[in-house]
């Protein structure tokens, strides 16, 4: 039996529904074979009041981006402000090189954000502060990332950052692996008398039976 069409589950969302102070983009950088498919996405906050949190897989074989993201959250005290995502390669079970690659992705985004905000001139930048970028990867396990493509892709994605539906849609497409539609939703709510907005992106579509928990507390 042919699976039912699911295309109606992906639809346009008005620009005004997306949260203020975030920029997003998605590009093709050459991890996936087909050039029409996005495989690298970037979402950054443009404010100074950033909070971040995460729940990570409880699988013992945590992929490099999971370990790096846990480290970033710990080192920043939950003040991360950006996320870079790639699809097509999970950067999992890739050893030390995988860790270096994931950290390289985070540091590249940091550097581009510093150029944008002028933070590279500050004393903090000179003393190599904690990365503020979280990393997500999905796709094939056990293969190294094509880092030249990835780093070029990050620069391209950064240059294309925007706040419109198309920007968010591009980012959502960059999450996809065997997904048949991009998964993007937004809504508004009132909190403490203020109108707030929330956006969500996610992806499946196989190896799905998550058991995720908060990052472990650092040892005293």
């Amino acid at each position, binding site marked *: 039996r042919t699976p039912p069409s699911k295309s109606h589950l992906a639809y346009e969302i008005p620009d005004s529904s997306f949260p203020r102070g975030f920029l997003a983009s998605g590009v093709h950088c050459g991890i996936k074979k087909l050039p029409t498919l996005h495989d690298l996405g970037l979402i950054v*906050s443009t404010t100074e009041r950033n909070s971040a949190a995460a729940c990570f897989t409880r699988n013992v074989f945590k992929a490099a981006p999971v370990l790096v993201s846990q480290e970033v959250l710990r080192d920043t005290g939950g003040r991360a402000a950006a996320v870079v995502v790639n699809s097509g390669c999970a950067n999992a079970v890739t050893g030390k090189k995988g860790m270096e690659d994931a950290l390289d992705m985070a540091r590249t985004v940091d550097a581009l954000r510093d150029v944008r905000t002028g933070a590279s001139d500050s004393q903090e930048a000179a003393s190599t502060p904690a990365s503020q970028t979280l990393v997500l990867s999905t796709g094939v396990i056990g293969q190294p990332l094509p880092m030249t493509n990835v780093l070029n892709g990050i620069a391209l994605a950064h240059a294309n950052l925007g706040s419109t539906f198309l920007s968010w849609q591009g980012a959502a497409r960059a999450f996809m692996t065997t997904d048949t539609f991009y*998964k993007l939703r937004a809504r508004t709510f009132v909190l403490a008398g*203020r109108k707030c907005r929330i956006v969500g992106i996610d992806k499946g579509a196989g190896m799905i039976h998550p058991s995720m928990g908060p990052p472990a507390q650092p040892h005293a």
Partner: protein
Amino acid sequence: TLLGLIATDAAVSPAALQAALTYAVDRSFNSISVDGDMSTNDTILAFANGASGMERELSLAPEDREVYIQFRDELTAFATEMAKLVVRDGEGATKFVTVSVEGAGTFQDAHIIASAISTSSLVKTALYGEDANWGRILAAVGAAPVSTPPDPQKVSVSFIPADGSEELRLLVAGEPEKVDEVRAKEILKAVDLEIRVVLGQGEESAKYYTCDLSHDYVTINGDYRS
């Protein structure tokens, strides 16, 4: 792999955001299954940047409790909507199935039983074949590693149609019903379906979201690396 990102322009402290996200994930993304396998990369991120203009960051302090609960519940509802999308697009999925376990002694037991039903290959293939095979559901319930095993004489199972029409009772307090197979087929033909299991042990309940297991799942995963 499951990856997700939720970003809001509300002002929320890192500790409050983490507490709300952990609560939300336990009731949404940790309650879905497509194929029973856990990835090395599963991650859900949350960001809050305060751009909405809230005067100060929402915290876990007692004076913020009411607003925090409101935010937490908003986040949980949104996360559940996002989690359901993943199940609807499970590899090869043709059905979206809600598994409700009620009348358990604890939330954990209800969650474990719902997970057992949601990951049973035989339940999932029966759903694909539109076969009202409630025996497989019961077998999964009975094999679930719970703290207090269900009493077979108290368990009831029904199918709840998505169109709001009357539920189809398959087993009531351990006794099989005379099932109208035509009606069962009708319910199972729909894309959306709910399986309701009542244990008759207590007041706790849990929901899980799953899909059927089809030929396409094997096709997609037979040569994923190439």
